[in-house]
């Protein structure tokens, strides 16, 4: 069972630091004081709450339904009382708040009724997809793309290969490694199940070469139906496009999707969660996360979704020190967060505490071209940087800014310490916004023109009607408006008084 490997261009060898956390058995995190469940833990539209403040819920009970196709439902992580539905800090690069459902656990952790399906092969692929959707499965790798969407697309066109991505290329993170070592059956059977759901011809599980124990664990359970591939450790091997190239030698076209080439990729943890959801009827309410870096006891945890990050860190002996920062996700692509109040969500794979983040001042680019050598998307990072700096957006498109996967390799090697990825993110945001602005401008132009035509028409007809008009009630009109103005003044005054009173209370 040998498969020819095709190394992807660029990439980096980064010290993995996985040994900090991957040797210890994962710990089941005790219940926190409160569970905060954001309505949006995935890409797409946020879920819609089905409960209200004060309701009692049970573990695994549906508390928010999916809103539209690209959306997943949300379940209570434990039993308890809903104490609030409102805006709370969520994992977000800008530190924004978003709507969340907050549960106060009652400590009993009682399960809602669950409907396990012991033999998934007896279910039609279509129905299986629905089960997975109802279980709230979104990609656990980091992007959080609803799993059922990928499955659905998969059944619409013939799928050649299903790839289960267990390549944890980011330093420090070892939650997939731990999951595979502890529950290899879930991953293997999850892979088989997803394969059944999309009727894929081949199935490949890809691991990095520095996960020998996980490899051995899987090897034991595997039959000939699944290929198990070890890939040399290189960042960002786990990127979707990079992994597909490495395994199949095919490049996903710029702007295209893997499914167009008959390839579907799912994360190992997603596969395990899907299997658990189908065979045990337990929706996605917990996940493995790695807590690593400068904590006393770096390790992996099994965490209920919605558990505050601080609570997780405390389990690993976190002590706050001056100069430390918290990063959700890996050091290469993770996001820096200002505090630890936000909850663990479906896409959180790591909590990293570190004080060795990049602080050196930014120097001018010296065009050394090291970023070009490491870019896995074969872009010209420095050209992108120049044009992003000069806000030359047409050029940026010409240089394929949108093919950047924000892996951070360019920033990592830059001798001038330029935060290249940050520039690209900003530029991307700006370009998307400009595009929207342009669309709305076109829209506005149309409306303006149609209004002008309408006015011209009205002018014409008004001119014709003018003679018939009389201005008797003009005075009444004036009086009416005057009265209305008075009325609203008082109303306004009342309102502002009310507001002031409110402020004082606060």
């Amino acid at each position, binding site marked *: 069972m040998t498969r020819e490997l095709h190394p992807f261009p660029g990439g980096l060898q980064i010290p993995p630091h996985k040994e900090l956390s991957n040797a210890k058995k994962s710990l089941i995190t005790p219940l926190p004081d409160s569970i905060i469940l954001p309505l949006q833990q995935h890409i797409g539209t946020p879920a819609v709450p089905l409960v209200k403040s004060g309701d009692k819920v049970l573990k695994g009970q549906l508390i928010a339904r999916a809103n539209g196709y690209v959306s997943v439902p949300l379940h209570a992580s434990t039993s308890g009382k809903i104490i609030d539905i409102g805006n709370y800090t969520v994992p977000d690069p800008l530190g924004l708040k978003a709507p969340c459902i907050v549960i106060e656990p009652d400590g009993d952790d009682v399960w809602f009724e669950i409907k396990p399906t012991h033999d998934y092969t007896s279910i039609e692929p279509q129905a299986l997809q629905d089960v997975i959707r109802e279980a709230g499965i979104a990609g656990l790798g980091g992007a959080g793309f609803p799993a059922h969407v990928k499955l659905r697309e998969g059944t619409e066109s013939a799928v050649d290969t299903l790839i289960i991505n267990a390549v944890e290329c980011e330093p420090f993170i070892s939650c997939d490694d731990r999951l595979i070592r502890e529950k290899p059956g879930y991953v293997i059977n999850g892979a088989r199940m997803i394969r059944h759901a999309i009727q894929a011809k081949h199935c490949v599980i890809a691991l990095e070469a520095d996960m020998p124990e996980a490899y051995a664990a899987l090897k034991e359970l595997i039959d000939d139906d699944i290929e198990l591939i070890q890939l040399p450790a290189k960042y960002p091997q786990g990127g979707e496009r990079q992994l597909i190239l490495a395994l199949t030698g095919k490049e996903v076209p710029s702007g295209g999707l893997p499914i167009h080439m008959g390839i579907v990729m799912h994360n190992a943890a997603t596969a395990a969660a899907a299997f658990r959801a189908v065979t045990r009827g337990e929706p996605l309410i917990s996940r493995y996360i790695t807590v690593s870096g400068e904590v006393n006891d770096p390790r992996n945890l099994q965490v209920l979704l919605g558990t505050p990050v601080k609570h997780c860190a405390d389990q690993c002996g976190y002590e706050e020190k001056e100069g430390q920062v918290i990063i959700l996700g890996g050091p290469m692509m993770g996001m820096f967060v200002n505090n630890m109040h936000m909850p663990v969500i479906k896409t959180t794979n790591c909590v990293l505490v570190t004080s060795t983040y990049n602080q050196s001042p930014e120097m001018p680019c010296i065009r050394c071209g090291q970023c070009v050598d490491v870019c896995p998307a074969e872009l010209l990072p420095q050209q992108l940087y120049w044009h992003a700096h000069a*806000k030359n957006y047409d050029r940026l498109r010409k240089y394929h800014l949108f093919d950047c996967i924000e892996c951070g390799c360019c920033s990592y090697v830059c001798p001038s310490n330029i935060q290249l990825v940050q520039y690209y993110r900003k530029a991307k945001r700006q370009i998307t*916004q*400009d595009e*929207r*602005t342009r669309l*709305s*401008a*076109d*829209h*506005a*132009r149309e*409306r*303006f023109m*149609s*209004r002008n035509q309408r006015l011209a028409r009205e002018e014409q007809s008004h001119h014709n009607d003018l003679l018939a008009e009389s201005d008797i009630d003009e005075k009444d009109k004036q009086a009416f*408006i005057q009265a*209305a*103005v008075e*009325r*609203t*003044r008082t*109303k*306004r005054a009342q*309102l502002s008084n009310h507001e002031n009173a409110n402020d004082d209370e606060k």
Partner: protein
Amino acid sequence: MTGILILLALTVVISVMLYNSRSATPEQEKLVDTVDALLPQTQCGKCGYPGCKPYAEAIVSNRADINQCPPGGRNTIRQLANLLGREIKDLNPAHGKAGPKMIAFIDEDICIGCVKCIQACPVDAIVGAPKQMHTVITQACTGCELCVAPCPVDCISMLVFVQGGRRVKLDPVMRTSP
């Protein structure tokens, strides 16, 4: 003598050809459309022209400068400069200053339904009927602020528009006076 005659003939030929090749107007019209496409279409009239198209015409015929569009800001000026091969300038402060995109918001508690704002709106983005309360179609509002002044009860305020369709609470710092 022959030489002078030949030159004379040459001159006549050239003048005839020059006369025939005066600049063509269709090209100008095309340019107006291209310029118009770069303008933000707020139709706010801050540039001193009644709408974006008239301003585009004024730019093309050299009656107006390229730095008179506050909603477009520096971005628009740069694009215009690139298109027309002119120097990039700062926004002319006489026409206002650039800021984040705003949209109008009608306080429905106060609105008396006078339809004055409906008449003022250049893009028909306000709906309502006489003596009924009015409301702004968020997607269609260009943030031109033309509806603010006519309102007799001051119930229209401009909010900062945050992308993603969310009209997030206005931040008093970012609020610009109408």
